[in-house]
């Protein structure tokens, strides 16, 4: 796939927009891709790395991915320039059942670099805004600089049909920070809408998910109405190589999207 756009999101975090070179592959993607699925992005000589497709299922002309530069592959991807070719394998995994969300209020909760998977769902819903009720987004990061998709955050902020609640961890605020300061679960408890007829989608580091689930429970959310996506380490993407296993679940095949009810049946320590 060819890189057609590149954007620095936060220190070490980049977004690439990719376009298909092979029509057949593009057709396949259009046919199969649904929000929540992931892919393996690769650079020959370095290997492949797994992240979600950050673009929504309502926009299938391209793929966007957002990642933090840390290892061998992500370093190579981060150095890739517009016009460069990289590989994409996928889309793999299951999806968010967006049709089931129709007519419901939506609560998106996300932390740090985990906004991309949430963002895919958010746009999938915002692109057909009329089908959903109230939309609330709670997003937090360690520091102001670590917030990703700053442009879109502004856009959501502007929209009257979206409630955006931004927060940074204590100590992470900049002098001109006008939003909240505090950890996501705490802020959530202050800002969350009523659990009635509400679907929650959370994505974040394991520790955030853990505490957010507790908060949601406290707020009265039913586990079956809470969705999350697990970002485990993967290599094959097709249920063979074994590293994404959590309990009997192959996250790459049966996930990455799970309801909180499903997650609660997994061995918590292995998450």
């Amino acid at each position, binding site marked *: 796939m060819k890189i057609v756009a590149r954007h620095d999101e936060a220190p070490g975090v980049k977004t690439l927009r990719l376009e298909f070179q092979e029509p057949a592959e593009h057709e396949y993607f259009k046919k199969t891709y649904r929000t929540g699925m992931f892919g393996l992005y690769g650079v020959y000589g370095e290997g492949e790395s797994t992240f979600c497709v950050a673009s929504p299922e309502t926009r299938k002309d391209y793929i966007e991915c957002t990642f933090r530069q840390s290892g061998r592959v992500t370093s*190579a991807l981060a*150095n*890739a*320039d517009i016009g*460069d070719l990289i590989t994409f394998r996928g889309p793999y995994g299951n999806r968010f059942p967006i049709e089931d969300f129709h007519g419901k209020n939506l609560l998106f909760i996300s932390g740090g670099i985990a906004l991309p998977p949430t963002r895919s769902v958010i746009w999938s819903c915002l692109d057909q805004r009329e089908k959903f009720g109230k939309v609330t987004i709670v997003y937090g990061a360690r520091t102001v600089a670590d917030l990703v998709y700053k442009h879109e955050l502004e856009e959501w902020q502007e929209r009257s049909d979206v409630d955006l609640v931004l927060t940074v961890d204590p100590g992470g605020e900049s002098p001109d920070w006008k939003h909240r300061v505090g950890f996501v679960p705490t802020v959530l408890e202050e800002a969350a809408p009523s659990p009635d007829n509400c679907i929650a989608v959370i994505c974040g580091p394991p520790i955030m998910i853990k505490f957010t689930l507790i908060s949601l429970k406290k707020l009265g959310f039913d586990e079956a109405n809470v969705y999350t996506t697990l970002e485990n380490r993967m290599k094959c993407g097709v249920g063979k190589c074994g590293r994404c296993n959590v309990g009997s679940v192959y996250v790459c095949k049966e996930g990455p999207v799970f309801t909180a009810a499903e997650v609660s049946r997994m061995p918590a320590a292995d998450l």
Partner: protein
Amino acid sequence: MAKIGVFICHCGENVGAKVDCTKLAAALGDHPGVAVSVEYKYFCSDPGQESVKKAIRDNNLTGVVVAACSPRMHEATFRKACAEAGLNPYLCEIANIREQCSWVHTDKDLATEKAMDITRSMVEKVKRNNKLQPIEVPVTRRALVIGGGIAGIQAALDIANAGQDVVLVEREPSLGGHMAQLSETFPTLDCSQCIMTPRMVEAAQHPKIRLLTYSEIESVDGYIGNFTVRVRMKSRYVDIDKCTGCGDCITKCPAKKISSEFDCSLGKRTAIYTPFAQSVPNIPVIDKANCIYFKNGKCKICAKTCQCDAINFDMPDTFVDLEVGAIVVATGFQVQNNSLYGEYGYGKYPDVINGLQFERLASASGPTAGKIMRPSDGAEPQTVVFIQCAGSRDPSKGVRYCSKICCMYTAKHAMLYAHKVHDGKTHIFYMDIRAAGKGYDEFSRRAIEEDEAAYIRGRVSKVWQENGKLMVRGVDTLLGKPVEIAADMVVLATAIVAQPDAKEFAKTIGIGYDEYGFYNEAHLKLRPVESSTAGVFLAGACQSPKDIPDSVAQASATASKVLALFSKDKLEREPVVATNNEVTCAGCWGCVLACPYNAIEKKDIVDRSGRVIKRVASINPGLCQGCGTCVTFCRSNSIDLAGFTEKQIFAEVMGL
């Protein structure tokens, strides 16, 4: 991925004649990641450089390879050009296709092929180059000079006279060092004290010099420009602010029979004393070990005598913490203990003395007021035998090296003796006469020709006492005959050795030393006054045996180094330094040992509650010189060297 510009320089015919530059440019043009590949007659010319800059701007290049002459020629030129075009200069590398290719090969095809490899490999390196910024280190403009002998005083005065603050630390009660002990100095025979004392006073009174005598260095931390030094001021038991230096206490002190260190045991001193009459500062100290009050709990005569109430028996040691930007080490030397040579009878026969003791005998302010007298009975010696190389150049018992000054001072001793004892006879056993230096050979010839010193080339095997004489048996190797001389006094030209605690002290300040304990210069030829630790300089005999002119010259050289360092607010250094990945570091400290610059320290990683969770290596960029020895040592591959990173070298090899 990358957008590398490759600029192939013909260097007129120098490259072009043997490397097909067009072919080279085409080959590199096809190399992955190369955005521009062009050739030109002379890229180092102004238009050449301009074209590089233009290419950088036009193509948004992420790296530049100039295939041309050696980087030792024009790396700086092209890096500067890159910087001018907005590209970080460290993203430019040179592929050496002239000195190491076109000039040394005859077959054009093979040379072209090699040039391709060299350039491709460099392109692969540049792809992984990082933007580097020169390292800026703030500089504290205050120098610490350790040692108050002639070298230390000279360095301190030079720095202070240039307007910079100096702290001069001396561990003895007075400035002066060995030079203050000398009688006259070669080759001019001017009185040592006469030229030394004014410098001591000047140093003590200089507004820019803070003098800490009777003080020792406890610890040194930090790095160039930013040292923190703790100094222990040993208790004098005399309040330096109250004491007027009248000397009444010294006169009254009942403990009078203490052997004087300054007089090399040839004289006596009291328990409260100044080392010598012209001491600077002229404030006495109490020698606790010999003080009657400290021994028996009774006396305090000095305190009663003192009109200023300056004596304080409860005075503790105090500590001073200093922030300094540079350190001059001028800790001097000692003379070797001659009792190593039992056959010469040193220590057994009182009339066998060493050169420094002779200096005291000859000194007008010495224990005999300058009269040459035998220590045993005070008689004037009529025959004196001098033995040179008593310790020097003797791998079996002494030291391997030449102590450098003995030939000259022995000649001087012979002259002084001849001037004082007109009918005396001198015999000098020597191995070679080393009299290189301005006026030195003339001086030693004078000893022979005018003062009738009898030089005997050969070694002494034994000295013994017989009929009130010291019998000296040696061999005259020129005559090939044994010699026996009945002498009244024997003077050994003892070896100059490092201070007894030199190695320990080197560890305290973090500099290197040789097997003898002399301090290592950064480079024997090119950086002779710098230690291996940036910001620490060496003056005088602590580096190697030296005479006064050499010590003074080196001291002034250190001063110029210090002043150069102090000429800027911030020190700018090449960013080719090592960094450590603290996550993967196993804390084995091999790098700490391997580092020639003591640039690596142990660092504790603590959790939120302050508990140490692990210890890792931490590299001080201020001290690191960028050799990369630590990188190679590191088994977990945690350390890397900017400019020559593991990734870069890997890529260079893989690109070949």
